[in-house]
């Protein structure tokens, strides 16, 4: 019977090609509009370290102005000071701990082929690579010993290694930055977390930095942060040393804790640390430390732009219009076929049989709409890429994965079945002899 209904459906769809095409197109466009925005949103809310979400924690301490919170209502600052980050790193109370910031450096390649260029370099403590599961192609990161010894070592991303060393195993080679020589100890494998959860300041969709160097070396070299710097009161002393000793925040701090007990112990340690600092006259606000998972941190920093949410709500309404359109057309079709239906009912077809027949027909339109909808989503993403072409990171946001393809098909079938229910119900309720009488 199923094959017979499929055949009937095909016949019915082909009997009205323009109308059927309109229904398929309406569903496809509605799905396309929705899925384009859903896909962009999906990428923006992606958690690149989802597998470690319950182990990684972003650290916040409230060293801010007693008269005015960092952000209403009572948010602690989003970064930490040099004083606190280095004290906490040194205490070493977490399983792993990372303090880092980004800084603009000038890279001076060997020879004359490549002119010196400016590059944003991440200055970080040693645990960065192990903590965020950063994959290596050659060599490895540096260790805490190198951090303490202020060794001039560096890790390159694989695109940067391609650019500077033609992609070969460059470990042991030297790299000149701002007239200082750094020894390459590792080259990363492909690694492009988006958003860059470990530093959500500035643009979190730009991808990670291409060069890494020890935090201690950066501070000794007086590197300035090219990210956000905020101060609630002016540094008491001038110069770089004054800035290090100030209440200004510019460093991102993360810790890895292996279970709830470790987390509780670390939270207690932070509280104790702040209470101790209060004795010294710092931390004038109430105790307000925070440990957030990568997911919590991305939600807190509102990584998803309002515009995307506005577009999503409009896209859902758009899909509703497309569905209303399809319902209206299916209904008109059913009403016009009242004769056939009542004849079939008179000849003994049950309501259930009719229901099956018409829902199959609608389902076929839904599947066709879903498949076309994937195409529309692809077109929609190309459109987004096009109108945002001036953003060089837009390519990171318009990627479609299989989950999204599956969601598009599922959404299309559900949408088409929703659209089919009312017209099908109307078809089933045609009484057996209603139209026969007139004839």
């Amino acid at each position, binding site marked *: 019977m199923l094959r017979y209904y499929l055949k009937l459906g095909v016949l019915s769809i082909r009997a009205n090609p323009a109308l059927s095409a309109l229904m398929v197109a309406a569903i496809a466009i509605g799905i396309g509009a929705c899925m384009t925005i859903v896909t962009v949103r999906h990428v923006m809310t992606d958690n690149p370290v989802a597998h470690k979400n319950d182990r990684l924690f972003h650290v916040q301490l409230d060293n801010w102005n007693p008269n005015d919170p960092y952000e209403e209502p009572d948010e602690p600052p989003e970064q930490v000071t040099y004083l606190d980050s280095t004290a906490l790193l040194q205490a070493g109370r977490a399983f792993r701990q990372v303090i880092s910031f980004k800084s603009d450096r000038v890279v001076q390649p060997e020879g004359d082929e490549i002119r010196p260029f400016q590059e944003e370099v991440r200055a970080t403590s040693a645990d960065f690579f192990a903590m965020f599961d950063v994959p290596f192609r050659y060599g490895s990161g540096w260790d805490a010993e190198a951090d303490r010894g202020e060794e001039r070592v560096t890790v390159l991303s694989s695109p940067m290694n391609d650019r500077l060393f033609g992609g070969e195993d460059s470990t042991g080679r030297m790299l000149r930055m701002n007239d200082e020589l750094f020894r390459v100890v590792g080259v990363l494998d492909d690694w492009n977390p988006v958003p860059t959860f470990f530093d959500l300041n500035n643009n979190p969709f730009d991808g990670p930095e291409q060069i890494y160097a020890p935090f201690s070396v950066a501070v000794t070299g007086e590197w300035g942060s090219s990210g956000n710097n905020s101060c609630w009161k002016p540094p008491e002393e001038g110069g770089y040393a*004054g800035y290090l000793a100030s209440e200004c925040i510019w460093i991102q701090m993360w810790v890895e804790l292996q279970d709830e007990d470790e987390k509780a112990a670390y939270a207690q340690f932070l509280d104790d640390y702040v209470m101790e600092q209060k004795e010294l006259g710092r931390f004038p606000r109430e105790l307000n430390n925070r440990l957030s998972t990568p997911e919590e941190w991305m939600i807190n920093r509102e990584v998803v732009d309002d515009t995307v949410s*506005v577009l999503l709500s409009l896209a859902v309404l758009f899909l509703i219009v497309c569905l209303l359109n399809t319902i209206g057309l299916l209904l008109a079709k059913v009403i016009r076929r009242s004769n056939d239906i009542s004849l079939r009912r008179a000849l003994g077809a049950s309501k259930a049989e009719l229901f099956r027949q018409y829902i199959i027909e609608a389902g076929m339109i839904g599947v066709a709409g879903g498949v076309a909808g994937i195409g529309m989503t692809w077109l929609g993403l190309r459109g987004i890429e096009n109108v945002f072409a001036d953003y060089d990171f837009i390519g990171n946001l318009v990627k479609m994965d299989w989950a999204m393809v599956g969601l598009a098909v599922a959404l299309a079938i559900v949408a088409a079945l929703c659209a089919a229910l009312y017209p099908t119900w109307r078809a089933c309720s045609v009484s057996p002899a209603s139209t026969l009488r007139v004839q």
Partner: protein
Amino acid sequence: MDIGPIWRAMLKNKSGFVLIALQIAVTLTIMVNAFGIIQERVNKIDRDSGIDEANTFAFASVLFKDYEREQRMALIDEDLDLIRNVPGVVNAIASNSFPLRQGGWSMALGLEPGNQTPESVSSAIYFVDEHGVETFDLTLIDGQNFTPDQVNWADPEDNTWPAWGIITEALGKELWPDETGSYVGKSFYINDNDPVNIIGVIDKLQAPWESWSGVERSMIVPQRRASEFVRYIVRTEPGRRDELMPEIEAMLVASNADRIIRDMVTMEEVRKLAYVGDAALIKILGFVVVLLTIITSLGIIGLASFNVSRRTRQIGIRRALGASKPAVVRYFLVENSIISAVGLVVGAALSIGLNIAMVGAFSLEPLAWYVIPAGMLALWAVGQAAVAGPARRASNIAPSIATRSG
């Protein structure tokens, strides 16, 4: 044309009409809210940054050799000297940022000394010398420009701020909302305890962050900074910008090999980049509105075509009984008007509802009063246009159809 019989005929077969009315309602909702957002963004993009955008460009000079402070100061002086002496250059400065750049320096200003409080007013800061006013093409509406002896070099070991400032009128209004006289001669505190005396007021100079609610608040400060990273801003005579950009770049590359020149950019490019998101949103929403209108009109056409073919006999009978062709056309137009009217009234209510929700959730501006009536009128016209085709076909049904058996 009698509306009564049309209305009663519609009631006999409600569901199809209800669906179209609903579709029109939701279409109106999307259309007017999209239009509201488009309007808001267009106004945002149209704002004047206050500088001579058409004839200004900027670039950065980044030193990578270790220079002493005195050497860095000398290099900046030398660079500015070179640039200012190029024929066609109106003026040039080294500053920290410029409007629309998306990155810059902001400070909290207070009327009392001491740590910042919720009453403090934040303002963008541009560090300039006495050439700042001319380079940015600022209009002093009160007071005067900095004199050369007011301009100093920032001392890295001393965080004290210069004692003079030129502020935008918007910043003055925010600091002294009730003041009706001149802001010149007034003072406030920056960096907690450093007093600043206002010596001039300019009509407009936007902060570097185009989405900041305080974008009109900025202050220029007579201080020069001898860092490794220097941003130069150059204003040229009208029409000479594009020819001078490569010339000046080549000149500076040749003058000193211990630095790189990067981020050569015209203010027009800066503006474009600053408003990419807004311009894209305008395009996306415009496209959505057009697409939606097409889909809804196709829906109206589809339904009307069905009704025409379903009512072929009745139409034939009416024609046989003496109804003229225009009368048949009018029947469908009036029918569509009734559907539209129902849909548009529901849609107007939905639009207001969605707008209130979005204003609350996403800090959008509420719709202007005329947007909803204009949208209703436009959609009504679209409906009439869509139904015209099927209606004409209906009017061409021969009266003799009535005599044939269905």
